[in-house]
Structure formats: structure tokens, C-alpha cells
């Protein structure tokens, strides 16, 4: 896992703490459908993925439900990073 992806994970975990979920979270646990995080958090995560990982999420057929778990978010980010080497600073 690259430093950027680790940072993204820390950001998501910090959001969870802010919303009162202190405990460990499984990589495949639902973040948004379960109501743990809201759309404002989702917007923030999407901005980070677009800005720091060079992923274009504006495609009308992009499946946003792919961003519901930590594992999914990290997969989308990592894939974007691999396609956009060298990683943006």
C-alpha cells in the first residue's frame, strides 16, 4: 500500500471517529449504505480520489456503489494511481 493510500485510509477512519464509530472497521464493512458516513463524507472522499489519485469519477456510468467500503475505496484509488504513474505529489 502506498503512502497516499495509507493517508486516504487514515482520513476515512478519522471521519468514522468523528461520527462516533470508534471501534475497528472491517475492510468490507459498508460505510454509506449502513449510514455510518453521510454524503458530505462521500463528497470529501471523492474529491481526494480525484485530486490525489487522478481518477475521473465524473463518467455518467461510474458506479458509485463501488465506494461503499474501505477495501473498495482503496481499490479505486490504487487503480487510479497505477494508471497515472508517476503518482502526483
Amino acid at each position, binding site marked *: 500500500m502506498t503512502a497516499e493510500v495509507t493517508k486516504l485510509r487514515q482520513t476515512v477512519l478519522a471521519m468514522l471517529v468523528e461520527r462516533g464509530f470508534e471501534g475497528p472497521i472491517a475492510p468490507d464493512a459498508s460505510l454509506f449504505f449502513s449510514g455510518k458516513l453521510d454524503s458530505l463524507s462521500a463528497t470529501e472522499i471523492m474529491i481526494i480520489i480525484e485530486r490525489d489519485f487522478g481518477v475521473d469519477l465524473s463518467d455518467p*456510468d461510474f458506479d458509485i456503489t463501488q465506494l461503499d467500503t474501505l477495501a473498495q475505496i482503496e481499490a479505486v484509488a490504487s487503480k487510479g494511481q497505477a494508471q497515472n504513474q508517476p503518482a502526483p505529489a
Partner: protein
Amino acid sequence: MHNFNLALAFSEQARQHPERLALAVAGREVSYGELARQVSLLAGFLKSRKRSGRIGVLGTRSLDAYVGILAACWSGCTYVPLNLKWPAQRLIALMALLELDALVVDETGAALLTAEILAAAPRDIVVPQSLALAPERPGQAISIRSGLTSDPMLAPAQLAPDQVGYVIFTSGTTGLPKGVMISAGSLAHYLDQTRPWTDYRPEDRLCETCDVTFDLSVHNLFLCLKAGASLHVMSELEMLAPARFIRAHAVTVWMSVPTVIGLIRKTGALKPGLFPSLRLSIFCGEPLPVQAAQAWLAATPNGVLENIYGPTEATVICMRQRLTDPPVVTQGRDILAIGRPYVTMEIALLDSSQQPVAPGIAGEIALCGPQVGIGYFGQPELTADRFREINGKRWYLTGDIGYRDQAGVYHHLGRADNQVKVKGNRIELEEVDAHLRRAAGVELIATVAWPTRHGSAEGLVSFVAGSTRTPEQIREAMAASLPRSMIPRAIHMLDSLPQNVNGKIDRRALIALLEEQATGHSPGGSDHLEAATSGGRAL
């Protein structure tokens, strides 16, 4: 005697066409027959607990929330959706006021049930699955919905037209939100007037963009089930990428606040022909910029677009304007008119002493007719203030400013609350917004009066999301068409604008952002405000 039960039409559809899809929600598809089975089971339980006749639903965008709503209706009770985003103290205060017979929660609602909230919750709580929850007081019972053992209620209870169908809360500017009580009869009038122009059919696939605490959900749910159509409920996450949802679900009817158009336009994705499946798009709740409406219509080559207007207090909406070519525009605002009223509703424009204004003059929009609600739950003084008897008729005063043009079409100019005084000049924020939108070339904008001292603001501050223009360019463009007092002192460029619980742009959150910045408590996110201009240089 005619039965006004809100769930009656649904029960008939379920009997005649049990196999048809009723609801697609949170990854599940539920047929009319299956939905009716779950509803009648819960209704049997609720009927056996009936005292006040009010059932709370703490949940949204879930099967449990919809079953809770329909079961409350089916059992002859009033349904009261409670907002998941309310702070605990508000939830506690409202539950104390409402004296609910039971509370139906979904998974998200269940997660909110702290000991403190449970203590204020009604005696009976219905949860989706077994939870590590214990009753907080003697006599309180927590039941699992699928495991209820009471007899199912086979047919919806008899309901008279004057009984309360639902209580939906609108956000008050101060204090507790106001619980608007709408009778079963008012809703029946609303459905009668709305069916001809929406013309929902069994093959229609309606999209639900709203929480059940917003009364646009009343329109969707009851018209959909009456028509035997299917309702496709978007999750909060899917709301961020609505284009894909419409395409993937082949949605035929869309209804949302106009902000959603701005969100899709911002990404550049709203291309002509994008949504071939849509036959009807409805926008409500905020001013609808004509350019945004036209871009949306171009994306729906097989559709029409309606702008609708109405307060929760008069049962969803009572005026509408179709987007025509050329469009019916509100002068100077670049927004679509709000059109003509339902034939059953009477509109008046009143001055500050509740007398009709002269033709062509702007006044407060007042509504009279069978859709006007009963009042605010438990707030007789507030009810008397907004629901008034004038010349022998009962009117609801909307707090919206509007005028009627020579063709008889109504135009919305803004909220009376948004009329602010800046250094003594009276300004309508919506008017500044119209110019700001034009100057910034985007829809996601908002202006607030800030800071305010002694009832008069020192200046205006604007917020813009997604514009390629600089604040200086925007201010220069605005200066060409506006007096100096209406030019924002600062324009903040943000990645996104905060939205309130109903998806509208949240001016109060923007003011809070400015307050936080002023007191040095910078907000946690990465969006530090960067005011790009200082006092009047660009002018």
C-alpha cells in the same frame, strides 16, 4: 362511506397485481404482494397498540422505513417520520411532544438508540433484526419486525377525511422544527389534482431522491403505489452520482431539488440525450435556473420538465409550470416561473397587513383551499400566526414573496426571510444569487448577509462551487448589472456547497462556516475559506 385510508389504493394494487415490483430499495426488490404481507403484519401489531394514533418512523431510504410508513397508514394511524440527522436532544424533545404509540426504526435508526433516546422513546419499538438493545424502562418492549406474532390486518382501517394522515417536520429557523399536520382528505385532493398531469402507469419506474422526512416523498410514494408503478429509492451515496442511477435503473420519472442538476452539470456529464428513459422530470424546493432546466431537458429527449411550487403546509405542491420553448421566465432572475395553481386552490398576494396588493405588485403568497393543512402539531400560537382567517376564508401565509404577471402566471421572488438589510438597503438574496449565477456560469452558488449587527448586515458574502472564473472576474461581471450594495464583499470558491437535510443549499451552514473562520476555529475539512478579494478594489 368512502374510506380515505392512505394505504387503500396500495392494498388494491397488491390484491390485483401481487407479482408487480413495488419498491427497489437498499439493494432489494420487493413486489406489491410481499410489501403488503409485511405491511399488514406490522399494521396488525400497531393496531393492537393504538392510543394516540401516532406512529414514529426513525429511518429513511430503507425497506423498514417504507413498511413502517405504510403500516401506520394501513392501521388507521398517523405516520410521523423522524429525521436521522436531528441531534439527540431534538429527537428527545419531539418524542416527548408527540406521545407516539410506537417507533419503527431501520438499521440506521437503531444505531441512534442510545439509552438517553430510548428513555424518551415510546413503549413499543419495532426493530429490523435482533439487536443488543435493552428496554430503558419498565413496560418498554423491543420487537423484531419479522417476528411479530399479532394477527395480520387484512384490510386497511376505515379513515375519515379529517383525520391526520401524516405529520412532516419543516425546519424552523429557530427552536424546534414545526410538525405540519396534513389530513387524509387534503392528501386525497392533492392526489386527485396531481394524477392527471403526472399520469403514472404500471410500467413507470419512479426515482426517489428524497428522505421520507421531506414531503416530496409523499408525492412519490402514494402516487406510485396508486398507479401500480415501481419506486426506486436512491441511497445517500447514489445521490452523489445520480446520472448512473437513472441510466442503470431505466428511470422514467425523476423528481428532485434543482441543486442536483448543478451537481451533474459541474462534472460536465449532463450531455444531450444522456437520459433517454426519462419521460417526466419534476423540480421543486428551490429557484430553478432556466439554463439548468434547459440542459436537463436536452438530456431527456423523450421527456418533459415541470417546475412545481408549494409549501409542506398546503400538501406537497399546488402550482406548476412546464418548461416550454420559449420558457416562461421570471424577469431579471433567469429562473422558471412557478406557473398556475391547481383549480381547487386559490392564491392571493398580500401586503404586510394581509390585504391584497395591487395587480402586478409583489406580495406574500397566501394559499386557500382543500390542500391547506390542519396546522402545526402542538404549536397553536405558531398555527394561528401562519394559518389565518381572512374575510371568512382560511389562508396559509407561505412567507414566500411572489407576483402574478399579466398572463396570470405566478413568479417566485424569494423567501421573506431572505430579505435582508445591508447597511440600510433592503436586498433579496435570491436576486443577488441570480446575478451571481450568471456571472459565475454555474448553478451551485449562494449568498448570505454577514456579519449581522442590530438586524442590519455589514455586507454580503457569496459562495461558488465549480466555476472556472476567478472571484475578481465574477465581482466585475456583477458590478456591471448591480448596485454597489448588492455586490458581495467576498466570494469564496469551494469544492462543494453544504446542503440541508432536504438537499437544498444550506445558507445557515455557510454562515456557520464564516463564524467559525472569524472566531479562529477553522473547520476540520480541507476547505479553508480563501477570500479572494478585499473591499471594493475591483469596483
